[in-house]
């Protein structure tokens, strides 16, 4: 016990004398620092390496412009598709609604490049769709070219709409039904109430979801590269792999890093605005509008179409192509085990680091911001940033190459995905109110004991959720793996990319589908859990 301190009024007050845990806090800050090391390295590389002539400035400008247009298209596309689907599913009853509620998130299991392979093949000049239409109609019916900027926007919108769907869904579910009912009693039709109340209230969530989709767009390498769209990220990978110019690579990465920071700012700003939804403390079971007549089939049709475009059609087509070909089983098996190992290892390391931050830096904004910046940073940028410190170690003759390469790769995953893991863990810990802490203390637990007996059990489900999220993302990751993997260590994603770039589509289909198969159970589990958790009820 510390001695009672004197207050200005002379009343003795016993100071809080709970033991601080500087060790845990220090560990949290160190974990957060891991996420920024690669980013600082990128800045350092970009500023210190001499400019070389390999990538001329006008090309950089073109990359940036293409990236910006693509980002805007995907933002609009995902926002419209995701918000519409979420609104239908949350507020209406129509055939298949309960299944769509979780199934609409399924495209998250498919890497964007898998969709790109399938659509490019389907819509190819000599592809089955055009052949069929040409034969039946007698003329060229599809002016649309998938290997183009609009094509890439279409493919990425199909792949990334679930980000908006999930955030919008959560926003609509948490909205006070009273606000909608108030609008009705003030003379708004249901559609008016959606347009004038629900949509503006969900705007922050929509913006946050669209920001996530754009982050993924900036990070994507496999899909845009395959579709022949030159973005900043393809530039980063090319500058490094083709020209071997880390300076140019880093300069391109710096632009991406800046864009990521802006996106992050947009996302955070809008997250802050989400307190909108919390203005009403009262919940009422959502009165779902049963759709009747043709509109119910229209709603079902829209959701089904979205699911078909986002997953069923491309996965189905890839499966059809895959069956025409006997794969190199041993190669795929090896890549599969590498992917699985990296996925599990990456998830474990990332969740541990995120948990350290969550427990050690609770309520501290700085660590969380730093980690979020890592999340917004494209994998390619992260990899380029890690190459510089890696080469230093390499030259120092440290360790064996393979182990260090794998270590760096896991480091890159953790730096990038810590924020994704941190979010559910933080949410889980938010259930621990300060008075629960105090209750544990008054019942005779020490502070660490309270963490062990109250915090950890309450956050256990969240830890699993975090692990699954990271696992899915690692399985789909391509550019960072491409740059950092040790020689001859192909993951499924890398293997797919190598086959695809040789136009061996039937072979690329196998690893792509295996990724979907590995990620799908996790995505289904996560999505169903989210779909079940409705406030009120």
């Amino acid at each position, binding site marked *: 016990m510390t001695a009672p301190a004197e207050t200005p009024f002379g009343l003795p007050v016993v100071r809080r004398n709970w033991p601080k845990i500087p060790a845990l806090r220090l560990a949290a800050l160190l974990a957060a620092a891991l996420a920024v090391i690669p980013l600082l390295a990128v800045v350092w590389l970009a500023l210190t390496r001499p400019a070389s002539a390999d990538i001329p400035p006008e090309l950089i400008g073109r990359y940036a412009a293409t990236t910006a247009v693509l980002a805007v298209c995907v933002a609009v596309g995902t926002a419209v598709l995701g918000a519409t689907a979420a609104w239908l599913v949350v507020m209406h009853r129509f055939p298949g609604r309960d299944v769509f509620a979780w199934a609409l998130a399924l495209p998250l299991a498919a890497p964007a490049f898998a969709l790109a392979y399938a659509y490019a093949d389907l819509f190819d000049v000599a592809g089955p769709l055009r052949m069929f239409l040409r034969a039946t109609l007698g003329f060229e019916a599809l002016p649309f070219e998938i290997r183009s900027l609009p094509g890439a926007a279409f493919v990425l919108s199909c792949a990334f709409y679930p980000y908006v769907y999930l955030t919008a869904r959560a926003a609509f579910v948490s909205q*006070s039904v009273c606000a909608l009912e108030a609008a009705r009693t003030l003379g*708004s039709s249901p559609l008016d109430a959606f347009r004038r109340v629900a949509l*503006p209230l969900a705007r922050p969530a929509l913006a946050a979801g669209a920001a996530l989709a754009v982050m993924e767009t900036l990070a994507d390498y496999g899909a845009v590269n395959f579709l022949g769209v030159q973005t900043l990220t393809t530039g980063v990978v090319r500058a490094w792999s083709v020209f071997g110019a880390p300076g140019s690579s880093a300069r391109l990465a710096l632009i991406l890093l800046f864009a990521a920071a802006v996106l992050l700012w947009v996302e955070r700003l809008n997250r802050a605005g989400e307190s909108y939804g919390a203005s009403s403390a*009262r919940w009422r079971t959502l009165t779902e509008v049963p759709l009747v007549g043709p509109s119910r089939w229209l709603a079902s049709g829209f959701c089904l179409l979205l699911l078909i475009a986002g997953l069923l059609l491309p996965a189905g087509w890839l499966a059809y192509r895959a069956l025409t070909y006997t794969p190199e089983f041993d190669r795929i098996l090896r890549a599969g085990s590498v992917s699985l190992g990296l996925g599990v290892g990456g998830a474990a390391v990332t969740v541990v680091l995120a948990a350290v931050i969550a427990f050690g830096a609770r309520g501290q904004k700085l660590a969380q911001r730093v980690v979020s910046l890592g999340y917004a940073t494209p994998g390619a940028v992260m990899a380029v940033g890690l190459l510089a410190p890696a080469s230093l170690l390499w030259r120092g003759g440290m360790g064996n190459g393979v182990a260090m390469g794998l270590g760096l790769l896991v480091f890159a995953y953790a730096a990038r995905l810590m924020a994704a893991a941190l979010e559910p863990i933080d949410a889980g810990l938010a259930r621990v109110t300060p008075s629960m802490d105090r209750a544990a203390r008054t019942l005779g637990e020490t502070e660490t004991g309270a963490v062990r007996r109250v915090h950890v059990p309450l956050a256990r489900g969240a830890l699993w959720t975090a692990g699954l999220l990271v696992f899915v993302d690692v399985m789909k990751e391509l550019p960072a793996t491409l740059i950092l993997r040790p020689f001859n260590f192909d993951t499924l994603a890398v293997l797919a990319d190598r086959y695809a770039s040789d136009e061996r589509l039937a072979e690329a289909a196998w690893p792509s589908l295996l990724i979907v198969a590995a990620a799908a159970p996790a995505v289904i589990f996560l999505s169903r859990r989210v779909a079940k958790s409705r406030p009120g009820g």
Partner: protein
Amino acid sequence: MSAIEVRGARRLYGKKAAVDGASLNVEAGRLTCLLGPSGCGKSTLLRLVAGLEPLDGGEIVAEGRIVSGPHIHIAPEERQIGFVFQDYALFPHLTVAQNVAFGLTNLPRAQRHARALAELERVRLADRAGAWPNALSGGEQQRVALARALARNPHAILLDEPFSGLDGRLKAEVRDAALEALRDAGAAALIVTHDAEEALMMADDLALMQAGRILQTGAPRECYLKPASMAAARLLGEANELPVTRLDGGMACTAFGGVPGSGAVVMARPEALVLGGEGARAKVTAARFAGGYVMLTLFADQETATARVPVTGAPGVGDEVRVHLDPAFSAVF
């Protein structure tokens, strides 16, 4: 013609009837209070009138037109009935003036703002027109919600526990302002509350509700002094239920005295038990001091009753007293 007539309304949640054959009239220009314990279905009844929920039986007539009934359900936006929600449900993305102007889509854009300001003037909040709802105090939010509902000139306005979120002194202030605005607007008003004192003070007409049914309607005074049943009496305040031991010359007699009438049970308010004189003998078993008065627990002939007596000259625990019943505060069922 009543502004709103509810005839035998029923609303089922699964097998349980939340509203079970309730009938009620709300007269134009008058303030009707719907009083009942929590969970009695009063809020559901309000939502049925507004059209926020479908009716499972009976019908609701507004201004002579059936708005809810068998195979009829007029959408809430077409009913011209205002609603003030318990949590006010102000739109957080709109300013105070924009909230009030929300329902004025029938007016040309230029007039909406002026109209909203006029409504805000009525609740004395014109100076907060540009503020955001979350910057307002609870009482101010309540007044904005009222102004928003009144702005459309509804022929009836429904208020769901409008003062329950406010505390103590603020509550009385806000209530007076709200009642003034309501009377000024002249619409029929139906207020749901679970606070008997509040209902008795505010209402022109009172409706007592329990377990999905309306027990009694009438003027507050009449409901209090001449309750239709024991249950109705209990809703409006403490009531002793005294078994009638014998009927004697038009008097129903109990352990604590008799009142004119005949029946099986006498309802006696605590203030009906008057001490002194030639009444029945009773023993004081408990005495609780409550400021201006004392609540006594009296025991006589195996019966207990609560009496409310002045502080001065109040007996103590263990004292033997004489007691009789004041018929003005009693009823026989």
